[in-house]
Structures are given as structure tokens and as C-alpha cells.
């Protein structure tokens, strides 16, 4: 079999035996017929007589059960119904998603008093309705069983519940007599909260407020202070940047404010067929393959310790000097190319860096100054306020605590015992604090060491405000009554500072007077956002005095040790605050496609040299990938040891190991406990800021093996290539019909693009009167973040299956994001990545439909491939016959929806993980969407095009006596997409958005596996790379060369 252009896994690339077997065996399980296969049937445990007995008994039992009296059901109305509430009709409230300093305006869908779904608030010009996976998953945290339910007194590890009054009395007395009070919080950007903190500290003189960010941006803040005189993060306008250079900043995944940046980024990345030059150019220099790097046009790798050198080289290059001080000709070439491009598009470029080193950030500021970004793509008139923590303040605090200079410590929204780099020192220091109070929502690592726990509300239960960007305020209003005896942080502070006003009143008073009346306030609350009428823009005076020193300083940072480590945040879990969220834990990482674990990412070169895993060797590749048995590495980093399984990712710099934070939690809930290892301990403090990389690393292999639940090998297209299409901008400019011609060559013999539906098949063409739903996904703007995946899970009650089941290929995501690599895996700079969201394609000539023996899946007149769960008998023929592998089978009772109680396995093969049971708790189940059936064991399920939403949208239009509009129906994935890559609507209406998108992008439009005539209703738009080299094509050329007997093209 020919080598593939695109590959999801190494075994696929090499087409190993294990992979072939995997592709053949659609389902991993065999029927449990072991006993019956022995020679003498009479001797088996399940004999024919037994079989008949059971059949007879179960038939009789079923009859008896069915003829029982139907249970009496009660219908209990309100005693006094709130006026605007209609049971069964959802209400929508504008509020704000808050996670540390991150604050995004949202709309909460509240059904019968329960918030069940969050969407972006499109009224906000700050986020423009953008969302990400964490935001979508955060609604589940409201119903987290691990939340602390009452205030508690904690002494010697023993917890005694307190009433709020008792707690207030005791804490009030303790605070008054303890000495200096320190408030240790995450970044606070709420104006009213800042005011309350000010009043609180005035009441307890000598105290102070320390902000601590687990993912710190101290370096950037301090560099800004040095260069611009302001300790803040400016606004970055990725939408205005035609050239984007990122030095290790994962601005689409985790860096500063990814939701806003993704929205902006997509503006320049959306390909315009009539104006191809408008496409922005993105360079990425990094050590590991990040989500942002995967989307870059040109990507270059370097050692983690070389970050400063790369920045310095880029600075000298944009200043017209030579590139020096970096290793490798390719890297130098890349820096030169990026600098040339930045100079070419002066004032329309932007350079960002993910480093937390002040010197590096200073150099980056100087580059931005040199390319005219200050005031154009960098906006100082409305700086970001999402991260304000300064690392040195935390160091001072821990030292003060240890020496007894802190009387009381009030902790809110931070968890230093877990996320501080020197947690042991903090743990020791807190024992010297007289009074320690935790306001965190659960009994996390830090709270366990405190004396009092006064849990705060979830943000969906809270009042409040947030100002993530100066001048851009987003309001919070409660969407549900507090579930537990918790109290909002602000209320506690007000109470303890002796102010009897409840925070709600306090907050209202401020805003009513600020906005000039109750009416304006109500309007603002309804909109959710208060924003300046015209967006303020402007630069700041640059002071480059310290730059030269910085360039000198970073030169010394470069190391030559054999291995270096870079610590990063995962796109799914971020800094780990939402670790007990099964939806996030089960979301496959965009790059590694691994769930439920953290691991050490290594390069294929490293694996081959150090671990003797040669992925070109079929046997070791099979063991590594098909059986998912990963060797465990013993790492010694900064004199701390850690054992982690490896994941091999092409595109990783060969001396680099990457490890994610956010794992290794203790006692924070059933889903998070014991998942992965804590990597925060690997961070180190360099005297000014916390370093997220290290070169003090020694590595040794171990005999231990560990299974990681990876999803990338789960489904195979069995050698069919034309799933995705990408071209370079040069190809397009040379021949803009390149994609159309490719399609014609595939289906030209069957009527061509115009008549393919009719002439490609013997079947008749069916009418679609009225509506025909269609979806378009732009591979060019899709960044692979996984927001759609989680939104789909929330909307459609998609079950969580847990790690064990993921390992058994039983993952259930209706919307998966396929990640393809192309190029030579051993060439870190040459590997290209492409993402493809894959969901049910709703084929008009669907192969799944005609194999169902009970017609449980069939086609609707609106073009939807329907699935009737109650009709399905679980033969799985449909999944077998689906060319896209998007059907999902309920192998176990994941939801507890079976009629039979205790039908969930807790031991043996197929034992379900704790997380599944967490999801089945009565409290957690409050998050379920009541309009969507919870599927039981043994039925097939898949994407429905959010049928509950299409039905509701149609009904809305009918009730209002008008034609369906695009706004009536938006699928969950479409609404969730931060880059607006997904468009959905009625394709029969030529004015609809979907028809327009297909028309305006007819040169890029294609259908996945079009040549097999399944006629999908989902179309994709070809990715156009703003580069002149396509790794996939190069590979092809090399292959052709080899086939013709000429020597294969040399490896890069």
C-alpha cells in the first residue's frame, strides 16, 4: 500500500500490521462466546438447556413486568409561579464567565430554573460572542458534587460544619486580634470587588492584597512597566495584523485571552477568493507543537532556553542587522524571513511571546516598536486586565508568612498548595499564620490546610461585574438560587469589614448611580455588557533604555544540555482550576489526542535515540500506538523527580520534553483525583519571575508501562485519501480552479460536479421541498481548539465514558476533531498539521441507512440522517458501514438510563471510571438538556444537526408567522466556534448564510470522500496555507521519485 500523504498516527503512516488489523476490526470486542467454542457443548457453562431456561424466564418476566400497573406520576405546579417563567420554556440571562482573571460575557440558557448551557454574548465587542471549551464545560462545575456545601471549621484535618452566623462571629473576632491581614486572590478585575477590598483593608490596617496567577504573566507585566511605564498587558489586535509572529505564545489556546484572540485571528485567516493576498501570514517559533503552532503558516523549532536568543535575533533582523546567536540554518532563515515580512508590512505586523521572562518580553516590546506595532496592532488605550499577579509579591508573601509577619490569610480563587512552584514552602508557611480562611469553592489542597472554609458561590449563582479590558465591563447576575449554604466572596468581605449592606445592593447602588438610573441599570443587566461607544485606540510612549541590557542578559540563558523541559498549559484544562470537570478531562488534546492524563511529550528523534522506539519499526509502533502502551520516563527536573508516560509528537524540538500542568490533583473530586502528575512543582523562580522551562534535566527510562487513552487511532478511513484538502496560496494564485479540477478528476466520469447527484447513482433523486439543512466548515479558519466538541457534549447529553472506556475505543464525542500531520516526522520544522472537525455528514445517500435491519436510522425530507434511539437494536451495522466513522455506540450504561438498576460495571473488564458515576449523580444530572433523550446501553447515537434546535427554530418562525431566518437555528458547534468556521442553515434558501458561503467559496468548496457518492450535507472549505511548501505534496513527490527508481529525496 502506498504511503499516505496525511496521517493521524505513526502506525497509519507506516501502515503496520497492527494498524491494518485495527482498521479491519471495526469493533474491538468479540461476542463473549468463549465457553460455547469448546468441543462438547453440553459441558459448557451455558448449555442449550440453560439458554432455553433463561429465554423462557426472561420472556415471562418481561410479560409480567409489562403487565404491571403503571406507576402513578405526580404533577406538582408552583404554589406561586414567577410571572415570566413558563415551565418547559427556556429563559436566557446575560452574565459573565469568570475563571480567575479571565472574564467572558456569556448568555446562560436557564431551563426551569437550572442553567444548562452557556453561549457567548454577541453584544460584546470585546469577545464578540466567542467561547472556548473551558467556558462551555464550566456550567458543569455549578453542579459539581465536590463543592463545599457549608462553611466549615477545620482543625487537625477534622471538618466541623458551621452556620454562616457562627462562622462570621468566630472569624470576625479572629481577624480583629490576629495582626496584619493579607488577602491572597487570583487576579481581580471587578471594579466593585476592588472597592470592597479597599474598604476591607482600610478596616484592617497593615494588611495588603496579593494577586497570584498560577499561569503568571509577570514577565510581560514588568517588561511593559519598563518599556511603557505601565504594569499592564496591552490589547493585541490580531485582526489588524497581516503578519503575526509568535515566539512560543499559544495565543489561540492558552495565552492571556485566547477567546478574544481567536476571534481576531480568524479575521485575517478567512480566505477571500477574490482577494487572496488579504490572507494573513503567521510565523511560529516554539519548542513544542502548540495549538497555535499547528495553525501557523511557517513554523520553526528551537530549544526552550533559546527563546531569548530567538527574540534577540529577530530584533536585530528587523533592525536590518544579521541574524546570529541561534542554532541551525533553518531557524536563522526563518527569523530572517519573518523579519523581512514584518518590515515589509510595517504597522501591520504583531509579535508576541509566551515567555514569562522580563528580558525576553522587553526585547519583544522593542521589536514591536521597531515594526510600528505600538498604537496600531498593540493598543494601550484599553489594556487587558486579565492577569495582574506579580511573582515576586507571592515570594515575599510566603517569606512573610513563614516568619510570622502575617496574622490572617484570606484565600480566594487560588490554590498555592497545588499551583505555587514551591508548594512545600507554602504548606509550611501557612502553619505560622494565626488565622487562615479559604473562600474556595471546594476542599482543595490549600483549603485543607486552612482553619476556616467559607465557600463562595459559583459564578452562575453570583452578582457582580468584571472588567477584563479597561473600559469594557461585563455584568454578572445569578441564574439560579444558591444550591448550597455558600456565600459570595464579596459578601463575606463586606460582612467582615462591618458593612451590613448585602453585595447585591452594594453592586446595584454603584451601577445605578454610575449609569444614571434604574432603567439604565436594568438595560445594562439585560445586555450584560457596558462598553465605550467608540473603541479607544492608541499607543504608549516607548522607553527602550533597558533593551540593550536585556539583549545581553538573554544571551546567557541559552544552554546546550542534552534535554530541556518546557512546562505548558493544556488547551482543555488550562491552569487546572477546572480539573474536576469530566467534559474537559475527556476532551482529546488538539495535538496529542490524549485524554485523562498528562504526559511527557517527546520528539520522534528523542524516542528513537533514547527510548529505542522506532516508529518506522512496525512492532514497536504497534505496541506504542495500537495497544497504547507507553513507556514511562523517570525525569529529574530542578532536582524534583516525576514519572510520566511519553507521547511522541512530531514537530517537537528534538531536545525538548513538554509537560502540562493542571493534573495530579488531590481531593478535589472524583473525576480529577489521581489523574496525571502535578507539574507545577517543576517550575522555578529566577529571582524576578517564574520560569516555565528548565535545562537542569536528567532523564532515565524505566521498565514501567502506562496506558494513555488516545483517540487518534480509533477510526480509520481505510486508505481513502480525499478526506481533507489543502493547497498553498501560490497554487491558488497560479490556478484558482485547482480544487475544482481535482474534484472533477475524481467524479468527472459520473456527471461532474453539476450532475453528480443524478448521474452518480442508480437510485432516484429525492425531493427536498421546504428546508434542506446544510453545514459548511472552513478548514482554513478552524483552529482545532475543541470548543465545538464540548459544546456538542453539553447540548446533546453526550455521555462521559472515562479513561478505561477511551482505551477500549469507546469514546462518544459526536463532534471529533481529526488532527492530521503531513511531512517527515523526523523533521521538527517540516511537519504540518491540519485539523478537520468530523461529525455526521448527514449523507443524502447514506450508507448507514440502508443496512439498518430495523430502519432505526433513515433520512428526513430536510436532509437529516435521523436516528431513532428507541427503535435501535444495536446491531452496529450502521457504524460498520459509515465511511466517516462518526457513529457512536453505547457499549455500557454510561448514563444510568437503563431500566435496570445497578447495570453499570464497577469491576472487571469494562469497569467504569469514577468520573462516569460522578456524571450520574442526581446533582450533576441537573445539567442535562431536557429536550434531548438520554440514551441507554446498546443503542447507536450520533450528531443530529441539533435536531432539538432546528425543530425549535422552525416552531418559533411558525408561531411568529414568518419565514425561517438564519438566526432561528444555530447548532451548538456553530455557536461555540470562536473563529466562526462553522456555518449552518437552510441550503434551499439562496439568501441564507450557508448558501452564500457555498457560493462565495465555490473554488474551495469540497465534500469529504465525494467520490463514493454518499452526498454529504456537510461541505468543507479547502485550507489555503500562506506558504509555498506543502509537506504533503513534498512527500508525494518523494514517493513518486522512489517509485520511479530514482533515489528518494533526501530527508531534511
Amino acid at each position, binding site marked *: 500500500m502506498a504511503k499516505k500523504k496525511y496521517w493521524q498516527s505513526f502506525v497509519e503512516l507506516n501502515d503496520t500490521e497492527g494498524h491494518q488489523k485495527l482498521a479491519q476490526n471495526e469493533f474491538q470486542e468479540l461476542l463473549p462466546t468463549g465457553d460455547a467454542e469448546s468441543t462438547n457443548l453440553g459441558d459448557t457453562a451455558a448449555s442449550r438447556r440453560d439458554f432455553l431456561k433463561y429465554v423462557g424466564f426472561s420472556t415471562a418476566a418481561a410479560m409480567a413486568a*409489562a*403487565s404491571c*400497573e*403503571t406507576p*402513578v*406520576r*405526580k*404533577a*406538582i*405546579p*408552583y*404554589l*406561586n*409561579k414567577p410571572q415570566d417563567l*413558563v*415551565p*418547559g*420554556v427556556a429563559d436566557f440571562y446575560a452574565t459573565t464567565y469568570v475563571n480567575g482573571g479571565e472574564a467572558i460575557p456569556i448568555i446562560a440558557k436557564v431551563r426551569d430554573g437550572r442553567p444548562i448551557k452557556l453561549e457567548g454574548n454577541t453584544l460584546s465587542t470585546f469577545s464578540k460572542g466567542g467561547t472556548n471549551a473551558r467556558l462551555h464545560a464550566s456550567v458543569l462545575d455549578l453542579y459539581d458534587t465536590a463543592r463545599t456545601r457549608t462553611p466549615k471549621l477545620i482543625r487537625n484535618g477534622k471538618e466541623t460544619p458551621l452556620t454562616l452566623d457562627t462562622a462570621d462571629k468566630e472569624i470576625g473576632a479572629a481577624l480583629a486580634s490576629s495582626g496584619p491581614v493579607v488577602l491572597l486572590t487570583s487576579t481581580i478585575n471587578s471594579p466593585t470587588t476592588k472597592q470592597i477590598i479597599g474598604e476591607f483593608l482600610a478596616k484592617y490596617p497593615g494588611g495588603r492584597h496579593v494577586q497570584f496567577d498560577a499561569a503568571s504573566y509577570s514577565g510581560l507585566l514588568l517588561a511593559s512597566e519598563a518599556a511603557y511605564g505601565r504594569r499592564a498587558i496591552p490589547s493585541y489586535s490580531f485582526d489588524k495584523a497581516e503578519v503575526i509572529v509568535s515566539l512560543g505564545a499559544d495565543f489561540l489556546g492558552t495565552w492571556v485571552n485566547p477567546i478574544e484572540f481567536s476571534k481576531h485571528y480568524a479575521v485575517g485567516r478567512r480566505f477571500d477568493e477574490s482577494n487572496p493576498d488579504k490572507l494573513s501570514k503567521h510565523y511560529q517559533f516554539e519548542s513544542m507543537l502548540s495549538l497555535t503552532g499547528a495553525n501557523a503558516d511557517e513554523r520553526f523549532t528551537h530549544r526552550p532556553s533559546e527563546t531569548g536568543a530567538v527574540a534577540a535575533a529577530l530584533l536585530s533582523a528587523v533592525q536590518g542587522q544579521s541574524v546570529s546567536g541561534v542554532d541551525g540554518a533553518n531557524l536563522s532563515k526563518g527569523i530572517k524571513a519573518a523579519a523581512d515580512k514584518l518590515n515589509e508590512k510595517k504597522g501591520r505586523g504583531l509579535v508576541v511571546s509566551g515567555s514569562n521572562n522580563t528580558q525576553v518580553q522587553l526585547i519583544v516590546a522593542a521589536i514591536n516598536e521597531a515594526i510600528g506595532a505600538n498604537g496600531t496592532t498593540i493598543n494601550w488605550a484599553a489594556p487587558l486586565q486579565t492577569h495582574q499577579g506579580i511573582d515576586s509579591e507571592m515570594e515575599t508573601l510566603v517569606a512573610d508568612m513563614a516568619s510570622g509577619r502575617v496574622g490572617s490569610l484570606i484565600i480566594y480563587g487560588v490554590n498555592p498548595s497545588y499551583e505555587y512552584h514551591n508548594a512545600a514552602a507554602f504548606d509550611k508557611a501557612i502553619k505560622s499564620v494565626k488565622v487562615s480562611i479559604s473562600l474556595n469553592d471546594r476542599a482543595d489542597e490549600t483549603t485543607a490546610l486552612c482553619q476556616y472554609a467559607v465557600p463562595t458561590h459559583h459564578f452562575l449563582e453570583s452578582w457582580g461585574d468584571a472588567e477584563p479590558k479597561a473600559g469594557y465591563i461585563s455584568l454578572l447576575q445569578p441564574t439560579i438560587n444558591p444550591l448550597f449554604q455558600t456565600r459570595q466572596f464579596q459578601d463575606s468581605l463586606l460582612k467582615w469589614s462591618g458593612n451590613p449592606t448585602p453585595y447585591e445592593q452594594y453592586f446595584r447602588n454603584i451601577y445605578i448611580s454610575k449609569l444614571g438610573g434604574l432603567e439604565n441599570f436594568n438595560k445594562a443587566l439585560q445586555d450584560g455588557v457596558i462598553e465605550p461607544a467608540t473603541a479607544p485606540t492608541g499607543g504608549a510612549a516607548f522607553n527602550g533604555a533597558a533593551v540593550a541590557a536585556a539583549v545581553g542578559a538573554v544571551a546567557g540563558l541559552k544552554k546546550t544540555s542534552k534535554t530541556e523541559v518546557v512546562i505548558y498549559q493544556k488547551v482543555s484544562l488550562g491552569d487546572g482550576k477546572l480539573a474536576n470537570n469530566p467534559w474537559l478531562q475527556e476532551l482529546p488534546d488538539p495535538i496529542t489526542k490524549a485524554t485523562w492524563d498528562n504526559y511527557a511529550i517527546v520528539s520522534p528523534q528523542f524516542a528513537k535515540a533514547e527510548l529505542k522506539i522506532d516508529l518506522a519499526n512496525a512492532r514497536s509502533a504497534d505496541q506504542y500506538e495500537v495497544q497504547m502502551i507507553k513507556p514511562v520516563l523517570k525525569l529529574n527536573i530542578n532536582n524534583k523527580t516525576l514519572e510520566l508516560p511519553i507521547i511522541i509528537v512530531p514537530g517537537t524540538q528534538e531536545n525538548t520534553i513538554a509537560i502540562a500542568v493542571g493534573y495530579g490533583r488531590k481531593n478535589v473530586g472524583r473525576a480529577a483525583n489521581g489523574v496525571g502528575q502535578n507539574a507545577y512543582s517543576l517550575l522555578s523562580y529566577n529571582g524576578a519571575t517564574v520560569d516555565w522551562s528548565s535545562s537542569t534535566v536528567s532523564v532515565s527510562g524505566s521498565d514501567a508501562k502506562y496506558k494513555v487513552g488516545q483517540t487518534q487511532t480509533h477510526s480509520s478511513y481505510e486508505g481513502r485519501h480525499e478526506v481533507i484538502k489543502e493547497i498553498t496560496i501560490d497554487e491558488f494564485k497560479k490556478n484558482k480552479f485547482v480544487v475544482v479540477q481535482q474534484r472533477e478528476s475524481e467524479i468527472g466520469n459520473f456527471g461532474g460536479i453539476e450532475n453528480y447527484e443524478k448521474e452518480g447513482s442508480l437510485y432516484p433523486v429525492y*425531493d427536498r*421541498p*421546504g*428546508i434542506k439543512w446544510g453545514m459548511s466548515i472552513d478548514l482554513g479558519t478552524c483552529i482545532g481548539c475543541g470548543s465545538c466538541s464540548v459544546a456538542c457534549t453539553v447540548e446533546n447529553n453526550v455521555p462521559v465514558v472515562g479513561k478505561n472506556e477511551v482505551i477500549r475505543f469507546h469514546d462518544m464525542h459526536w463532534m471529533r476533531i481529526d488532527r492530521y500531520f503531513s511531512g517527515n516526522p523526523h523533521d521538527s520544522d517540516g511537519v504540518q498539521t491540519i485539523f478537520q472537525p468530523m461529525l455526521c455528514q448527514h449523507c443524502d445517500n447514506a450508507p448507514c441507512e440502508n443496512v439498518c435491519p430495523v430502519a*432505526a436510522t*433513515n433520512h*428526513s*425530507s*430536510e436532509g*437529516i440522517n*435521523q*436516528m*431513532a*434511539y*428507541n*427503535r435501535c437494536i444495536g446491531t452496529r451495522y450502521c457504524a460498520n458501514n459509515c465511511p466517516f466513522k462518526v457513529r457512536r455506540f453505547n457499549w455500557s450504561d454510561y448514563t444510568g438510563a437503563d431500566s435496570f438498576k445497578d447495570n453499570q460495571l464497577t469491576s472487571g473488564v469494562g469497569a467504569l471510571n469514577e468520573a462516569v458515576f460522578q456524571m450520574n449523580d442526581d446533582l450533576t444530572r441537573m445539567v442535562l438538556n431536557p*429536550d*434531548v*433523550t438520554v440514551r441507554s446501553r446498546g443503542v447507536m447515537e450520533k450528531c*443530529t444537526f441539533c*435536531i*432539538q434546535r432546528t*425543530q425549535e427554530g*422552525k*416552531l418559533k*418562525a*411558525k*408561531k411568529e*408567522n*414568518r*419565514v*425561517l431566518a438564519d438566526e432561528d437555528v444555530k447548532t451548538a458547534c456553530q455557536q461555540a466556534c470562536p473563529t466562526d468556521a462553522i456555518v449552518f442553515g*437552510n441550503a*434551499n*434558501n439562496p439568501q441564507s448564510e450557508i448558501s452564500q458561503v457555498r457560493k462565495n467559496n465555490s473554488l474551495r468548496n469540497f465534500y469529504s470522500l465525494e467520490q463514493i457518492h454518499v452526498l454529504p450535507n456537510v461541505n468543507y472549505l479547502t485550507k489555503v496555507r500562506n506558504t509555498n511548501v506543502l509537506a504533503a505534496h513534498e512527500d508525494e513527490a518523494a514517493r513518486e521519485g522512489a517509485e520511479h527508481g530514482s533515489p528518494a529525496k533526501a530527508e531534511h
Partner: protein
Amino acid sequence: MSEHRPIAKNILTLSILISLLSLSNTVNAQDGATLFKNKCASCHGVVKAVLGPALEGVEGRWPSKELLYTWIKNWNKAVATGDPYPVKIQTYNASAMTVFEELKDADIDAILAYVNKTAAAAKVPTGPGGGTTSDAAAESDSSLLYGILTLILAVISLVLLQVNSNLRKLADDKEGNPSSEPIPFYRNKTYITLLSLILFVVGGYFLSQWAIGLGREKNYQPEQPIYYSHKVHAGTNQINCLYCHGGAMEGKHANIPSTNVCMNCHMQINEYAGPDIFKEDGSKVNGTEEIKKLYAAAGWDPATKQYTGNGKAVEWVKIHNLPDHVYFNHSQHTKAGKVQCQTCHGDITKMDEVYQFSELSMGWCINCHRETKVDFSNAQGEGNKFYSIYAKYHEEIKNKTRDSVTVNDIGGLECQKCHY
């Protein structure tokens, strides 16, 4: 083979005869049932006295059938004849019987036939099916009638066939044709086969009917915590359904009104003074006491006319239950589809205690979706504008190749219109 042919022919004739007979019979019985439900059932039960006397054995009570006809059409005329029976029964209840001049003698016969049939069925003990008693009883009852009829006809045909074969044998003997020894009918394979086939078909029919009925709750009429009479509220007092069940126009649930909605009126209305209400078991309902139960639930002190704050929501028993895998939206039907409440819930204005009027089975839903016409635009361009996108149907209507569009035509029978 030759001697079997006449038998086969006879059987064919016979079966056609039977099926014809039973067909006409069905039509009659259904008419009777419908007429009874529409005209009589609001005041008369078959075996149970409601407002009027029970109708079981009514023919026997009347001196002549003519007089009964007269009474039913217009009771005044019957009294005017001076016959002592109508004179006696005119004082049965304070409220007089309605006049039904529109009924023909044949209609009355149909009603009486239905009454007799239902009365007979009521005496037969209920089968093991349990849940669907009256419906199943009515079914098995009419079948019993057919059964008896079929049996009689079968016996006659059997006798005739025997006679026929004996005569043929005699004739054969007379003409000197050789004939085989006759086989007694109980060993005749044709008869045995026929009999087992009939048993299989009939048995299978009943078995499948019973099985289909499992879990269905037509006529389910639970006792509610407060005796709330829809007849008094929606019937006598003509309160609009939507006053209490406003959700029906807005969302999926019609919603049982919250207690504060009841109190809107019942703050003033604290006693019941209408005609007597009787429960299903015949006992009398004290309306004023039931209103007091409402006050207790609402936490209302009628003496001080104040809320005490000790209210507790009424736990009504839910009557209409759909399986979890069915999505049903009231507003889809009432607002978009303009379906009347009564279409599915029956004549609520005549029900004291509400029962489940419709089967709520999938077949029942589908049937309605097949027949119901969508609010498509007519010649005047009226109709729901949503459907203007169905260009093809509009074209067909214009060309007169189509006269209407049913729910089925716009995909109303597809799985995921209700199951998702």
C-alpha cells in the same frame, strides 16, 4: 381432488358472506357508540346512573318501543300520550332530559344495540389485561357477537356440507358410481386444518391486541387530591382552557396552573352552589369542602382573608403520560397547528373528573399527522407564511394537481420529528 372442489367453493361463499355480514355489523355498532357518546353519555351511563338513569335494560322497562322512540326524540310528547310510565319517570331528576328531534328510529336502534352490547360486556369479568378494562371489554364484546354469529353460520354450513355430501353419495350410489367410504368430519384433514387456522388467526389477533394495549392508559381517570370538576369550571362557567393552561400556547407543557391562579377567582368564590356533583362511585361531592382544601393548599385563611404563608403545592396526579423518548410540544399543535384542545383531550367541558380521552399511542399520533392539513396559504394568500418556502407544493396547488398539504407532506411522519 375433484370431490374437494365443491367444498372449497362453499367455504369461499361462506367466508365472503361472513365478512360482509360482519362489515355491516361493525358500521352499525360504531354508529351506536358514537351516537351514544355524543348524545347520551353526558347524562346517562350504561350500567350506572349519572344525571339520568342507567340505560341497561331500558327496552324492557318501556311498555312499547314506539313510545320509547317518542320519549327519546321529545319526552314531552311521550308524557302527552298519557301513558303512566313516561308520566312516572319525568320526575326522575330535577333537570329535564334534552330534546333530540334529529334522531331517527334507526339511530335509536343503533344506540340501543350499543347499550345492550355494552351492558352484556360489563357482566363479563375483566380479563387479565387489567389496565385497559372498558376499552378491551368493548372490543372483546363485539368480537363475541361475531364469534357467536360465525359459530352458528359455521354449524349451519357444516350441516349443509354434510347433507350435501350425503346426498351426493346417495346420488352416486344410485347412479352406480363407485365412491369411497366417507371420513367422519372430525377426522377430515380439511376441517382440522381449517379449524386450526381459524384458531391461530383469531387467537393471534386477540393476543396482539392485548400486547399492543400494554402500557397504554386510555380512560385513565385517577382520583385527584382535590375534587376539581372541569365540567363546573370549563363547562358551566365557561372559563377558557388557556386561562389556567396558558403554557399550551407557549411551550411544550400545557402546565397545571399554580395555586395562585386558582386563588384569583377563589378568593371570592368560597362555596359551591351549583348542581350536585357525583363521583364515579356515585357518592356526592361537597364542593365547598373541596374549595376549603384549595385554601389549605394555598395557605389562605378565609376568615381573615389573608395568606398565612403555610401553603403547600397540590400534588396532582398526572393523567397524560408520554414515554420519555417522545418529544411533544403543545404550542406546536395549538399555536402553529391551530388544533383545538378537545381534539385530543375530548369534551373536557362535560368531564367532572378528567380522564385520558385519547389513546396517546404512536398510531394515534401518526393517523392525525396523515390526515391533518397544514395551514398552507390558500387562494387568498392566507395561511402561515412559514410554509411559503414550499415552492413545489404551492406550484402544485396553483396547477390544481394538489388540493391540500398534510402534515405528512411536510415530513410529519419522520422519526426525528418526535424522537430525539
